[in-house]
């Protein structure tokens, strides 16, 4: 669905978005976004399945302890699995990749939001053993696609500096028009 690598679309390109995208979000997608949305996924579901990777979209069969260990493996702080369960139950979309051989989650991402205007993608992880083969990209492409299908066009995330280069070719722009992501910190509060 997303163009990979550098791309440029001439503004007078005859490229037209497919009807379904137009109906869902008339005039809401930028030209570049619509063009990107028209493309298929970089790697298809079938191709990934043939390599033993299955896409799952519910928390059914998702072992939260195993998921937590993937989080820890990539450097997230260890979180309480009960709390993770609450978070996943109040998440609009989630996607995980099950490795058929072990039945374990090897990639994950979820998005929260208001269901109509905005969504934020959180907890994007790929098990270090399975990094570098396109799973992260596949997960993001599909989460974005699902959000677009719901009509949500304002899709954001917070990226650690070392993975800005991962998100950029997927269509993400940092600080567009000077908009800054900000996080509350108790110790920053001015008295």
């Amino acid at each position: 669905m997303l163009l990979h690598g550098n791309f440029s679309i001439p503004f007078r390109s005859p490229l037209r978005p497919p009807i379904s995208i137009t109906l869902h979000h008339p005039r809401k997608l930028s030209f570049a976004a619509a063009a990107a949305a028209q493309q298929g996924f970089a790697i298809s579901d079938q191709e990934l399945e043939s390599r033993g990777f299955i896409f799952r979209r519910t928390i059914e069969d998702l072992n939260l302890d195993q998921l937590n260990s993937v989080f820890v493996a990539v450097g997230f702080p260890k979180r309480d699995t009960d709390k993770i369960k609450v978070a996943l139950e109040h998440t609009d979309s989630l996607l995980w990749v099950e490795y058929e051989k072990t039945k374990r989650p090897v990639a994950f991402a979820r998005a929260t939001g208001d269901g109509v205007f905005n969504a934020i993608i959180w907890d994007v992880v790929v098990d270090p053993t399975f990094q570098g083969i396109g799973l992260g990209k596949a997960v993001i492409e599909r989460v974005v696609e699902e959000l677009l299908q719901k009509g949500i066009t304002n899709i954001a995330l917070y990226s650690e500096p070392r993975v800005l280069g991962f998100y950029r070719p997927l269509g993400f722009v940092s600080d567009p028009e000077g908009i800054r992501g900000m996080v509350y910190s108790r110790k920053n509060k001015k008295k």
Partner: protein
Amino acid sequence: MQTSSSSSLCAIVPLDCILNCSNQLAYPCSFSLGLSRGSRDLKVSRLKAGFWESIRSGLIKNNSTQVIEPPSSTDPQEDEEPLPQEFVLVEKTLPDGTIEQIIFSSGGDVDIYDLQALCDKVGWPRRPLSKLAAALRNSYMVATLHSVKKSASGEELNNEKKLIGMARATSDHAFNATIWDVLVDPSYQGQGLGKALIEKIIRALLQRDIGNITLFADSKVVEFYRNLGFEADPEGIKGMFWYPRF
């Protein structure tokens, strides 16, 4: 300190004037003179003084007031007292004798038409009403500011309840929350109401143990949020948008 109030709203009140002036900050405490009587059913509770000091210090522009923290209070947000769902934030008397109260509520009771009118007022692009309603329903918290006018004798005047501010937050109920759509009626800006809205939301979220509170700020308001405790690009973490349409 002037005891006569001007018609432009001003909630800048030095501490020593509270009991003498008709411009009052209504504390939900026993000594408050400005609490509403009559039809409005306000749930008020005594909040620790430290919290109110922090709010008021935001409202007082020159900050010359002495703020004395009670020895037990540390960070205002660490207060154990739960935030009441609805309470009077500011109260003042207008030149014609009517009383205006600014009421904060986290109950999420918003008239969609009022909200659309407010969005128009601040110049935001129109959004479909049904989607606005859905967005509010799907939000974890919706905080509003309403202006309520009463006659001098305390009766609520008809149709004088106006939506003048709103902010909402989405959340996964466990770890993260994101604040969206913060707006204050232009004629009520500059008095610390936006600040109060955000501080209340933050406090309510922290009380529910949601520790990661985030937002995306236009460049013009980054400083506003910084003063409320938000940090831009903490540890180099950057906000990114998918093909932003700006």
